[in-house]
């Protein structure tokens, strides 16, 4: 492949398809940093990349990685930006100028004196970008730069990248999984599979190809139109709405908004699995993280908690599982108060999956991880280990060290290690972070399966599409309070900003639609005369 100057190339593909390796090849880290066997050559401006001096290369190609936490070296913001410049051996005067330029361009002036540890995730990633930009590269390679950020910070970051490309003429190579946010920014989309480039072309061309080959790699809007058999595929909500508006004009909308009613709570008379009553929580530093929370979760329910960073979602989860004790109010699990029952351990009844699966893994094999939890609770293996490993598709890694697995597999090992106790309530903190669409779908259907089997599932996520697809109930939090609660249609359907791409597409044109399947089912028949492919064929 070749990339022209000033191009914005988006590289998409499933986990393990070789995207990140490609990025490292383009920035010269492979083979010089990693080693390994290799063949073929990479040229930068007609010069072989390996022959270019590292210093010169670093001034041409800059790279931003996934996790900002693992890229920062210095304590202060300014020192961090200057770090690369010091490495290049630039004179003082030149460093002053560049640091000043970058700080004002990225609007970091207020944070100039701040400690890096005090910044938010989005600010940290912006700082990483600043540190790379200060070296004045001409090519920017971004390896899933927003995978650890919340949607607002991610949007911010992409806007910045777009400006760099359009106003400053940077050549951008962006590796991404959240395609709905960046598909339209790119001039060219490269799709990878199993270490090969399988498609390379303009975004709409890529969208058509991906739709044709059955990959859900493309944004939901494009996928929707491709399923309905359209030749030109819109990649943004704006284009999609125009197209849909034209199509629907004059056609009757069947039935109007169909706010699907939640199934009448079957457990109306019974005690709910989890009940949070007037819960208040204050951190020792005086921050009131939770204010008057009331929430019930029944067996068989799948509840998604949405909300921006710092709104108290994780604190609520920790209160639910007994890791934090409420300041006021009560948390009841199957009717019994956890805080009063000190001898009783919630771990048997409640499984908790934290944000970072690495916090779980320390045994020599995957199997030992599961047995460790069982041993702690004095349980015998009655075949549940086999069952879980099989169900989570990690059976073939049974005797492998969990640290040798990919991040998606690690997460499933961590999940298995808390599910061995056959808990009735599953509590997960941002399990969708950093997962690609395929793994996300796998996780979603696994959890939905658990809920269908009678467990209660509560999870925190930033991923609205995920919540709309799998959750039966959605809770929205803001500044320590629940601001909205109800079925996904009641909450997400009414929100303008916290809505799915399909929801935004159909708003006002055909209300009450949130997910891809619903859209195909409801709108498909309206567009008579157009070949309608069934959604099922593309799942």
């Amino acid at each position, binding site marked *: 492949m070749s990339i022209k100057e000033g191009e914005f190339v988006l590289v998409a593909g499933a986990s393990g398809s070789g995207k990140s390796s490609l990025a490292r090849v383009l*920035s010269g880290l492979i083979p010089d*940093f990693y080693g390994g066997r290799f063949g073929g050559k990479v040229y930068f401006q007609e010069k072989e990349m390996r022959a270019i*001096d*590292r*210093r010169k290369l*670093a*001034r041409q190609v*800059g790279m931003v*990685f996934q996790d900002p*936490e*693992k*890229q*920062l*070296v*210095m*304590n*202060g913001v*300014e*020192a961090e930006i*200057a*770090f*690369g*410049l*010091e*490495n*290049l*051996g*630039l004179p*003082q005067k030149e*460093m*002053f100028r560049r*640091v000043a330029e970058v700080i004002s361009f990225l609007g970091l002036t207020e944070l100039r*004196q701040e400690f890096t*540890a005090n910044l938010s995730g989005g600010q940290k990633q912006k700082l990483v970008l600043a*540190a790379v930009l200060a*070296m004045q590269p001409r090519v920017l390679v971004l390896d899933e730069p927003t995978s650890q950020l919340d949607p607002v910070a991610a949007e911010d970051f992409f806007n910045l990248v777009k400006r760099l490309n359009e106003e400053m003429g940077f050549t951008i190579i962006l590796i991404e999984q959240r395609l709905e946010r960046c598909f339209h920014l790119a001039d060219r989309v490269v799709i990878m599979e199993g270490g090969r480039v399988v498609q390379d072309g303009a975004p709409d061309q890529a969208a058509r190809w991906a739709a044709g080959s059955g990959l859900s790699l493309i944004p939901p809007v494009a996928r929707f139109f491709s399923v309905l058999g359209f030749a030109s595929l819109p990649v943004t909500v704006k284009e999609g709405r125009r197209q849909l508006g034209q199509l629907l004009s004059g056609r009757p909308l069947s039935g109007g908004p169909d706010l699907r009613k939640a199934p009448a709570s079957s457990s109306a008379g019974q005690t709910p699995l989890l009940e949070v009553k007037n819960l208040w929580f204050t951190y*020792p*530093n005086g921050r009131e993280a939770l204010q008057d929370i009331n929430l019930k979760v029944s067996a068989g329910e799948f509840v998604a908690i949405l909300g921006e960073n710092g709104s108290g979602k994780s604190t609520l989860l920790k209160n639910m*599982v007994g*890791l934090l004790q409420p300041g006021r109010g009560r948390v009841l699990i199957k009717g019994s108060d956890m805080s009063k029952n000190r001898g009783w*351990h*919630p*771990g*048997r009844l409640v*499984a*908790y999956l*934290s*944000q*970072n699966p*690495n*916090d*779980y*893994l*320390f045994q020599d094999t995957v199997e030992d991880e599961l047995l460790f939890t069982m041993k*702690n*609770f004095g349980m015998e293996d009655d075949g549940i280990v086999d069952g879980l490993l099989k169900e989570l598709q990690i059976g073939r890694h049974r005797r492998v060290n969990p*640290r040798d697995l990919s991040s998606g597999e690690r997460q499933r090992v961590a999940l298995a*290690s*808390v599910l061995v*106790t056959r808990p009735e309530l599953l509590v997960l903190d941002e399990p969708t972070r950093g997962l690609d669409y395929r793994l996300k779908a796998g996780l979603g259907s696994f959890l939905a399966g658990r809920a269908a089997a009678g467990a209660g599932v509560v999870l925190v996520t930033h991923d609205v599409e995920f919540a709309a697809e799998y959750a039966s109930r959605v809770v929205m939090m803001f500044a320590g309070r629940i601001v909205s609660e109800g079925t996904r249609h009641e909450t997400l359907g009414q929100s303008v900003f916290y809505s799915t791409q399909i929801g935004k597409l159909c708003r006002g044109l055909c209300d009450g639609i949130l997910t891809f399947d619903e859209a195909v089912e409801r709108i498909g028949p309206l567009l008579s005369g157009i070949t309608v492919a069934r959604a099922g064929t593309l799942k």
Partner: protein
Amino acid sequence: MLDKLFYKEKGLFLQSLHPLAALTYLGTLLVLALAFTNPLYLLGILLVVALAIRAADGLEAWESYLKIALFMMVLVMIINPLVVHAGKTVIWQGPHIPVFGRLTVSLEAICYGAAMSVRLLDIISVFCLYNLIVHPDKALNLFSRFAGKSVLVISLATRMFPAMVREMENIRSVQQMRGVDFRKGSAKEKVGKYSSLVNILLLSSLEDSLEIAESMQARAFGSGPRTCYSRNLWRPRDTLFLSGSACALGAGIWGLLHGFGSYTFYPQLDYLISGPGTVALLLIVLFSLSIPVLIGWGCGRWHYLKSKI
């Protein structure tokens, strides 16, 4: 809760010092606190440091340091008289105890313990002041010219420390939910539980370190000789404070060589003030040391002074 112990940028006068001037000042305070034995001198230094802490808006932070310091002071004051039998003025005699011998408490030992605990307080307060007025990056920056790599390692370590504390907390929660009860079990079992916490932390840190190395490599680390970015400015005030520190240090050393500033506790207490020289020297030292406080106070009042210095 811990954040009040760390440096915070507040744009204060004392925070605007060049790190060389600030570190020399703090170093002088530390050396003098260790060198003087005269309780008056030690109290004088404590007064100066307290004023400086107040000027650095750090009374609240100082309080947390004081809590630890007071505990240690009490300990020193109790233990010293019990184990040291050098004093002549015995005020209490206790029973015979195997290892220590006969318990005797002398006035001299009590006074020595008190003086030493003031010295301890001096030293702890100087560290408190350091945390209040010196930005760690600026201090490291000063040394990075001649010890670049060591400074980078220190910087990475200080950056990692709070992150690791947070990580440790998460791992502990996770282990708790997996049925590990940290309150129960024998000492040996507890060690086992905690060592697996550390084990997880180390495994994760090791993995993370590779990513940090990669990011450093991508930013041309180790590609050749480095330069050093420094935004520290040298103002007239730094010259003034540096000379103040030098003056205090010089006077202190001269005084110690000529018998001022030191004090004999054993076998019998000396006079606190052995002549006008003791007072004169004390005043000189205290004045030189309090220049930053005085100037800082003046700058707060008169804009003219601030613009000139």
